[in-house]
């Protein structure tokens, strides 16, 4: 039975169990609901939980272990000469079997082992799915029976139901932690495999990046250099250009909106600026690559400058505009949070409005603004689509914004998009870069959030 139908059946069964339990509760109470400990609907929910939880539990368990279980059975069923292959060849063979079984694709010749394996794979899959269906439905029915028997006027159904639901709430709140753990572990694990072949020092301090590794031993230029300094430099160059655009524009517009603009003007301008944050980054990328970059190149050649068609300037400029709303909205919040008494004191001493802003409000708001800018920097470093579409691929170590540079995110995308074997240093390098990216943005974010939070407490 397809998974979606099984889920639907289980949900219907639980709904049915609810009515059953509620009816049973009214029945055991002899029609007098006040004899019951809880409301009849609590008894219904109690039986429904008995029906749903075990069945969905086994379903989730099976979905997690299924691929590995079937794989090990298939390997066990292979002829001995195939089962004793070295791990990487075995993985290839399994891949063929899976492709044949799932999509009817045959890679290379229709090998006898592969055919038999695919047959076995399919039969196991069918068996597993049937067993799952039967077990899940039996569990659901058994759950209903058990829950039904437990229903009595003394049963504290509400307490049990609420305890279960609270447990579910707690479990769902841990998803965030599991996500972080998942990110850290997957990045660390793959990056560790990368650092087995390439030393950490070469990655962090090497000046040359050319991740082409050899397919054959004797290939030219097959060495593969993994010095990431040019990539880090390129990332910093583009982020710096973005920040030189975003910080003045964002900060000045925040000051204008918070201090000068009439409420009506503000209520129009603020959403308009937020539109900039809502535009998908792929749109910015397209605009940078097809409008801004050619414009810069053509005007640069008029001025006698040699501007690369994938210049850091184009990507940085457009990224800066994208970041303006982040800077402006955080700065706006922080500036409006500065107590009125500070402004009034300054104005009362005869300072003009701009002097008040520059000498009193901004210094008071500075920690919060710095926090906002740090968040924006982390956003710029991690931004992907604009640089993938508008920045270059070649890792040039240069500080010239008119040349093409590459960034961490561009390299991750180019290394991982397309078909690749999953154990070459080339693909693993992407995870090392991802780990660096994650660590840098993590430090920036935690520090920035810490500053912003501390600042808020100061004036609350």
């Amino acid at each position, binding site marked *: 039975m397809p998974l979606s139908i099984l889920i639907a059946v289980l949900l219907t069964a639980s709904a049915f169990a609810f009515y059953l339990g509620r009816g049973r509760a009214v029945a055991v109470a002899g029609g007098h609901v006040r004899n019951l400990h809880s409301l009849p609907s609590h008894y219904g929910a109690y039986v429904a939980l008995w029906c749903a939880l075990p069945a969905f539990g086994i379903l989730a368990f099976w979905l997690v272990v299924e691929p590995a279980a079937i794989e090990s059975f298939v390997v066990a069923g292979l002829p001995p000469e195939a089962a004793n292959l070295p791990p990487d060849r075995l993985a290839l063979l399994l891949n063929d079997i899976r492709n044949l079984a799932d999509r009817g694709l045959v890679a290379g010749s229709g090998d006898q082992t592969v055919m038999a394996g695919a047959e076995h794979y399919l039969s196991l899959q069918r068996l597993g799915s049937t067993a799952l269906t039967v077990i899940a439905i039996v569990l659901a029915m058994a759950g209903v029976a058990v829950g039904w028997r437990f229903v009595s006027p003394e049963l504290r159904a509400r307490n049990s139901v609420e305890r279960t639901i609270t447990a579910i*709430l707690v479990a769902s709140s841990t998803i965030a932690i599991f996500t972080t753990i998942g990110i850290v572990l997957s990045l660390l694990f793959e990056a560790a495999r990368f650092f087995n072949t390439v030393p950490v020092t070469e990655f962090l301090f090497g000046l040359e990046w050319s991740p082409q590794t050899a397919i054959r031993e004797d290939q030219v230029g097959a060495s593969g250099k993994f010095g990431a300094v040019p990539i880090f430099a390129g990332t910093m160059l583009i982020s710096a250009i973005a920040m030189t655009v975003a910080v003045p524009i964002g900060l000045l517009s925040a000051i204008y909106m918070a201090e000068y603009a009439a409420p009506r003007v503000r209520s129009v301008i603020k959403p308009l600026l937020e539109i900039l944050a809502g535009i998908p980054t792929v749109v910015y990328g397209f605009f940078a690559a097809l409008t801004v970059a050619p414009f810069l190149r053509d005007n640069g050649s008029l001025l006698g400058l040699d501007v690369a068609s994938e210049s850091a300037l184009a990507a940085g400029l457009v990224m800066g505009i994208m970041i303006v709303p982040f800077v402006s909205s955080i700065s706006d919040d922080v500036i409006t949070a500065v107590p009125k008494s500070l402004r009034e004191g300054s104005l009362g001493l005869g300072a003009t409005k*701009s002097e008040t802003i520059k000498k009193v409000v901004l210094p008071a708001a500075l920690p919060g603004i710095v926090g906002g800018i740090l968040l924006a920097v982390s956003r710029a470093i991690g931004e992907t689509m604009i640089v993938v579409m508008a920045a270059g691929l070649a890792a040039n170590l240069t500080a010239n914004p008119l040349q093409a540079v590459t960034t961490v995110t561009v390299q991750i995308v180019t290394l991982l998009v397309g078909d690749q074997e999953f154990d070459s240093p080339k693909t693993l390098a992407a995870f090392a870069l991802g780990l660096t990216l994650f660590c840098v943005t993590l430090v920036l974010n935690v520090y920035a959030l810490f500053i912003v939070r501390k600042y808020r407490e100061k004036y609350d």
Partner: protein
Amino acid sequence: MTDLASNSAPRQTTERIAASLPRRYARDSRFRYYGLVAIGLALAFLVLLFVSIVSKGYSAFFQTEIRLLIEFDEDRLDPNGTRDPSVLAGADYGGLVKSSLRGLFPEAESRRDRKSLNRLMSSGAGFVLRDMVTNDPSLIGTAQEVWLPAAADIDMLIKGFIDRSKPASERRVNDKQIAWVDALQERDAIERHFNTRFFSAGDSREPELAGIWGAVVGSFYTLLVTILLAFPLGVMTAIYLEEFAPTNRWTDLIEVNINNLAAVPSIVFGLLGLAVFLNFFGLPRSAPLVGGMVLALMTLPTIIIAGRAALKAVPPSIREAALGVGASRLQVVTHHVLPLAMPGILTGAIIGTAQALGESAPLLMIGMVAFIVDVPTGPIDPATVLPVQIYLWADSPERAFVERTSAGIMVLIAFLVAMNLIAVVLRKKFERRW
């Protein structure tokens, strides 16, 4: 003398201040002007962005079509007269188009000329005829005037994106093709029609046949998975953190985690999806299911943060009143707090989903960049999504794809605007001031 000295000092100060005032006022108004300029720059850029995209893309909503007199010759389509659908589907419809063209311009005799003549029509013209015949086999044996899609280069010529004054070697249509197109124009046999194919077809290597429907459906399945996962999980987490969680280290850890996840670069979520969902759990590549799961993890913090804000906005008096008449804590939440907070939670969820709709970087990591012609029929089928389709088209050098990319962006932005409008309307309609 002492009297004078003590009097002159304050006067000097006042004078100095008075003298400096014009300068200070000028600086004051200049500062205010800087703010205006900054806002003006940002808004000017916004306008420039939209103008450039609309001006590049509006023409993609129209497609050049050529009227041809097609003879549905029975001998060529169904020589045995069986009307067997498989025979009809396999017949040579491209040949019909070619012979009709040759009938129009008999002067093209050399192989090269015939080849460039055939290039006037899209390679999809035959498929249009095939669909006509399979839908209505009674057409066989008749002759019909049919509007068929022109090739992308001819489309560009008609739309004026190919410079006729350039030497023939530098443009993609040769002099003869231009002459034929002009001849067709004189007979009113070439016209621009509304491009329905753009909204109903999947991707294609031929710009004139490429459409966004496949990507729209892919986006739909991806977002469906995202909503089904992220909304319940996010709301439950928000309820727990806001209504039940004790203040301790564990709760603090969860909160720090959520705030941090909200700022993790999206591409890192893609790496997580690649390493965990694809390599560890062995889920299929390019599937909306996996894309939806990755985007769900990414949108979760947005929904949680918005949900908590909405729950916090419900005044404590409601909770106290419900507790006072004997409700349990869970009953307080499910019967009173949650219904009151729902509009706010939904607004946050819609905004989070809109973000997920525009996101493409993590999906590149899990293989949703494949070239996929078929429209997906379920969340396991290989698919791509709207922003990734835009990215793929933006990589193609042809002018006709630039126009389609911009049109795709317009469709994507239309969806985003619609979702945000729904969020705004929800907020306006159900917002309560306590």
